[in-house]
């Protein structure tokens, strides 16, 4: 069977990777239907062969959407020559639920429940960027109480830790260090237990809201955070023994899925993928938000742009986050956990019993929502996976006219074909894992 027939058999139409003989040299260079970036010479060489005699030697296979190593429902079309990946095209959309459209139907107060479900491994960062964008539209971004700001930082950093711990777990599992999976989940669970105590939920908290947070930190929170901080360093040392210093682990990751700084920038990638190429770009340091300019931490940078660098960066970012959390513990101010602005803050429960106006106000905020002035705004922050951005257009009503989330995984996943080309199928799993995509965010 030729590759063309092969494609036809598995075809759903134009979203598929096209057969090599369908594409000219110029198009190959621009990666028609395949998202494969070749050098000019390489493309010209391929283009000169009218009907590629090698085509019978290659095979197009689908990896996913149901594949344990695709982290959800990611489908990859791979053109293979033996064990070598010639081309790859990620096909997404299997988890698309129209969350941006839903966002237009929800008020700014309800919006948090929607965005928190996008990147379900770092929900607090999603809520944070949405709240920051809304606050910027309202013009209250500088009036958020200090305690709320530092609480947001605390939760954001703990979320970064839990997300990276899960990465270590799944990365270990994908590479074959299956015991790491248990350890990673175990440590992440400790962080989630803290989230549950603070927000009431392990995930999808809807805790960070426009104007501040939903509630204050519970009594004894400091001890819980300290318990996590005391527990983790020794565990991270164990990971170093188990993985970082282990020859098989290094052999499996070093030099796999290499990407250069220029490529990473051109593809728009951010977060650990961009930093693994040596570009020290971390929005926490380079465009500081909250109070990141007042805490001391290092931006972890790699030098080879391979899967091992991306692993090591995330492992060490947990250590940096712990450093930040310790500083937050020292500096956590007292005060209010949300802005006392009648426009966005519902009146306290006790007031509702004694004041008719407070009751009406409370009712209005939760049924109609608060009105947000006309305008448009883009806010980008550093999520564990890279730059998560929120673009909101308001027409002056209580619901966003348009809400767009710039999802880091959606962009990072485009780097997959680039990292995989010329590698082995077995390495494809390592590459997907090192990109750490969250499909809920890719498809939204």
């Amino acid at each position, binding site marked *: 069977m030729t590759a063309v027939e092969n494609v036809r058999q598995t075809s*759903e*139409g*134009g*979203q598929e990777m096209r057969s090599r003989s369908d594409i000219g040299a110029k*198009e190959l260079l*621009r*990666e*028609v*239907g*395949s*998202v494969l*970036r070749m050098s000019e010479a390489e493309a010209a060489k391929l283009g000169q062969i009218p009907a590629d005699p090698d085509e019978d030697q290659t095979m197009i296979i689908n990896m996913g959407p149901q594949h344990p190593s695709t982290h959800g429902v990611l489908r990859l079309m791979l053109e293979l020559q033996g064990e070598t990946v010639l081309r790859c095209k990620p096909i*997404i*959309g299997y988890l*698309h639920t*129209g969350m*941006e*459209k*839903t966002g237009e*139907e929800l008020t700014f107060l309800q919006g948090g429940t929607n965005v928190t479900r996008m990147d379900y491994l770092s929900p607090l960062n999603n809520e944070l960027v949405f709240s920051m964008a809304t606050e*910027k*539209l309202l*013009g209250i971004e500088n009036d958020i109480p200090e305690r709320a700001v530092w609480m947001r930082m605390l939760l954001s950093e703990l979320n970064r830790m839990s997300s990276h711990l899960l990465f270590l777990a799944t990365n270990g599992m994908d590479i074959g260090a299956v015991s790491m999976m248990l350890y990673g989940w175990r440590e992440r669970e400790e962080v989630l237990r803290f989230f549950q105590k603070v927000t009431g939920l392990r995930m999808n908290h809807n805790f960070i809201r426009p104007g501040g947070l939903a509630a204050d930190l519970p009594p004894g929170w400091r001890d819980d955070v300290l318990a996590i901080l005391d527990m983790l360093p020794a565990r991270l040392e164990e990971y170093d023994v188990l993985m970082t210093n282990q020859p098989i682990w290094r052999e499996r990751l070093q030099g796999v899925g290499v990407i250069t700084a220029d490529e990473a*920038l*051109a*593809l*728009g*990638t*951010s977060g650990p993928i961009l930093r693994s190429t040596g*570009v020290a*770009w971390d929005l926490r340091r*380079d*465009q500081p938000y909250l109070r990141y300019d007042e805490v001391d931490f290092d931006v972890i940078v790699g030098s080879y742009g391979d899967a091992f660098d991306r692993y090591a960066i995330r492992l060490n970012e947990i250590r940096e986050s712990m450093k930040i959390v310790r500083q937050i513990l020292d500096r956590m101010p007292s005060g209010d956990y949300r802005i006392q602005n009648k426009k966005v803050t519902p009146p306290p429960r006790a007031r509702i019993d004694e004041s008719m106006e407070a009751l009406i106000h409370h009712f209005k905020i939760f049924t109609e929502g608060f009105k947000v002035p*006309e*305008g*448009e*705004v*883009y806010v*980008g922050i550093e999520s564990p996976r890279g*730059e998560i*951005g929120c*673009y909101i*257009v308001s*027409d002056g009503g209580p619901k966003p*006219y*348009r809400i*767009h989330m*710039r999802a880091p995984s*959606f*962009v990072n*996943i*485009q780097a997959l074909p680039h990292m995989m080309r010329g590698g082995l199928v077995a390495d494809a799993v390592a590459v997907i894992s090192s990109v750490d995509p969250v499909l809920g965010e890719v*498809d*939204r």
Partner: protein
Amino acid sequence: MTDVQAAEVLHGAPVTESRGQRVVHPSRAQYVALLKKLLDDGYVMCSDLTAVDYLTHPGRPLPDGVSAERFEVVLNLTAITTRDRIRVRVQVPESDATIASVFDLWPGTEAFEREVFDMFGIRFDGHPDLTRILMPEDWDGHPLRKDYEVGRIPVQFKGAHS
């Protein structure tokens, strides 16, 4: 509104200020040339490309010389060296919903432009692979357009006659 006053001109296009962020408003003819210049100015990263359908909100403030159209393509560019952001907003009319692709400048816009095509039906000239990305291949319509109804799943109540 502070949005309307064109404070300056950048590469021949009016620049406005929106919530402390710089916004450039090129015409469709200026679009690619302006982005090329911005890329040369150091905006090496195209962080975001999306679109907005202004069908039910036509009266938005725009600088002089820019007439409001139904669609608007919005780009957010980032300069790594100067740690600066800039936003580009281009008007795209409903009657001719096409705009040039910027794939050649930032290959990373490939998926963004496909998403905008999928969700709004705006065509990108010169895009290498303009197909649907999130919706199924045979889907009718473009979901994020304002005249596209939000779907409802009928709720079946226990004991109700259907």
